[in-house]
């Protein structure tokens, strides 16, 4: 496309390199002043969100922060009390069916039919979502391969492990090629091994299908998988940014260096890099915004006198505490 044509786009807008080839896609999610009240409960109290297409976006917050209610509104299952909400460019008030066609949902509790086989569950879904008849078989096959469940296709779902079920649910959520996939607490109830697997699966699925993913979690470790995070507390977004940004807003990284002579090393770092390390229990502690980048410089400046180095970043626990004044409750796993 030539520069002259760019100015002729409908809104007269110019698009950055790389975005030119495809028409601009609407934001995957746009929520403005979203409110949901139930009798006596204000579940969501003025939530704003803007998620561009293709992002892996996380809603992080304790149980009861309004995450599941938000997901229910995003799926057009629950009508917002007030506020505006568009999903994949469709208004949830006026075009709920269009919203539902553009989304895939994996709910917190399993919504598979245990009495049907793996393949039958996928086929029911394909029919409910109007997947073209000729494409049902190849897509079901492809999803089974992607979910590593091809050899279990004829197994009853109730015989699958928790991790397999979750993989199947994610595969099912993507079967009709949604633009946006919602994962509500996707690792709830999974053992650590299955959790790692689930994340591999999410990243692989996302790579294959190119969908925007919005997930909710109250696990900080999982929030790190996201491109961007919104910290939600009491029905509002209290902080927004990449996991690294949110951390850096809270405090610096700490680099801990063990050397033969901490005092001399400290003096050397002050002279060469202008840093002011402190000595703690015989180790050097350097505070910096981006510890990972600084670490090699520190080691070089000390000329190989470093016997061990530890980098610690502020945890999202610290982040949550910082923004809400409360610690994230760590729930007992079920």
């Amino acid at each position, binding site marked *: 496309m030539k520069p002259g044509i760019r100015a002729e786009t409908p809104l007269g807008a110019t698009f950055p390199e790389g975005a030119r080839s495809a028409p601009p896609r609407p934001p995957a999610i746009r929520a403005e002043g979203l409110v949901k009240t139930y009798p006596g409960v204000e579940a969501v109290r003025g939530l704003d969100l803007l998620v561009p297409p293709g992002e892996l976006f996380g809603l992080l917050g304790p149980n009861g922060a309004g995450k599941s209610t938000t997901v229910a509104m995003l799926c057009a299952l629950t009508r917002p009390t007030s506020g505006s909400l568009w999903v994949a460019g469709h208004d949830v008030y006026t075009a709920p069916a269009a919203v539902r*066609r553009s989304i895939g949902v994996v*709910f917190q509790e399993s*919504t598979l039919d245990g*009495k*049907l086989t793996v393949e039958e569950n996928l*086929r*029911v879904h394909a*029919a*409910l979502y*109007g997947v073209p008849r000729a494409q049902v078989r190849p897509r079901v096959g492809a999803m089974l391969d992607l979910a590593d469940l091809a050899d279990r296709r004829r197994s009853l779902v109730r015989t699958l492990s928790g991790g397999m079920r979750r993989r199947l649910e994610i595969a099912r959520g993507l079967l009709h090629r949604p633009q946006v996939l919602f994962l509500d607490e996707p690792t709830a109830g999974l053992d650590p091994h299955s959790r790692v697997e689930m994340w591999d699966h999410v990243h692989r699925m996302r790579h294959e299908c190119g969908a925007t993913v919005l997930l909710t979690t109250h696990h900080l470790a999982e929030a790190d998988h996201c491109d961007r995070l919104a910290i939600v507390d009491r029905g509002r977004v209290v902080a927004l940014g990449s996991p690294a940004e949110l951390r850096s807003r809270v405090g610096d990284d700490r680099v801990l260096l063990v050397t033969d002579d901490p005092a001399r090393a400290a003096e050397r770092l002050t002279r060469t890099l202008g840093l002011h390390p402190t000595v703690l229990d015989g180790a050097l502690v350097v505070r910096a915004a981006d510890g990972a980048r600084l670490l090699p410089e520190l080691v070089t400046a000390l000329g190989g006198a470093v016997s061990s180095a530890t980098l610690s970043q502020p945890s999202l626990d610290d982040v949550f505490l910082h923004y809400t004044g409360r610690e994230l409750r760590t729930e007992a796993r079920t």
Partner: protein
Amino acid sequence: MSTTVATRLDTEARAVAAVWRRETTAFLRERTRLVLGLLQPLLLLAALGVGLGTVVPDDGAGVGYVTFLFPGVLVMATQAPAFASGASILWDREFGFLREMLVAPVRRESLLLGKVLSGTTIATCHGAALLAFSGVAGVPYDPVLFAALVAVLALASFAMTCLGALLAVFLPSLQAFQAATGLLMGPLVFLSGAFFPLDRLPAWLAGPTALNPLTHAVDAARRILTGYLPAVPDSLFGSLRVAGLRPSLEEELAVLGAFGALCLLLAARRFARPD
């Protein structure tokens, strides 16, 4: 325009079929459910049919109480599975699958229709399976008779499945549903003419029996059956009268269909209401 309407209808029809297939697949997989469902009506046929048969006079034509009882037991056999279909809506809510259906881009009416049609199918199968025991009740193995009886059973199943669906969408929990159907099932069966002729009931009971859809199902099945029997004792096979009039077979079948359709309509309106 007409193509978009056709596409939308096709989408909804596929959803109805998907729900129907899901339920019937699970039913075929659990054959013990069918066997257990048949045991109660068979026990009734044996215990009541033989036991009461000794008290109820036989007119000598070989058509006794067991034969009288048989159509009633057929209709009764469809009732529990028909209500179980309503309960499955609440089970689906409990186990989450309901959300998978509700979030799909199809009308909720279609989902409910799929449920009701699968419930009707399964309940009809329960009743039809009992036809295998026709010989015990002195009922001839006649394919035309069986086809007619299955048609009546299908309409009775439809009516009861829709009633079950109506209760399921209005009641808050599975426990409430079970309490309600437990309460309903007795009167519905006992006042249907399944066990005793209704023509000698006191006037105050005539009203409730006429309003009971099962009354019309039992009477329809029984009058079809009598056409295939040599001679029937009038003391047992007295005909049903509603407000002094004898309803036609068509009218009885229409009552069943209309009752089911009304329940389905009310249930669908409630079910489609957004939260």
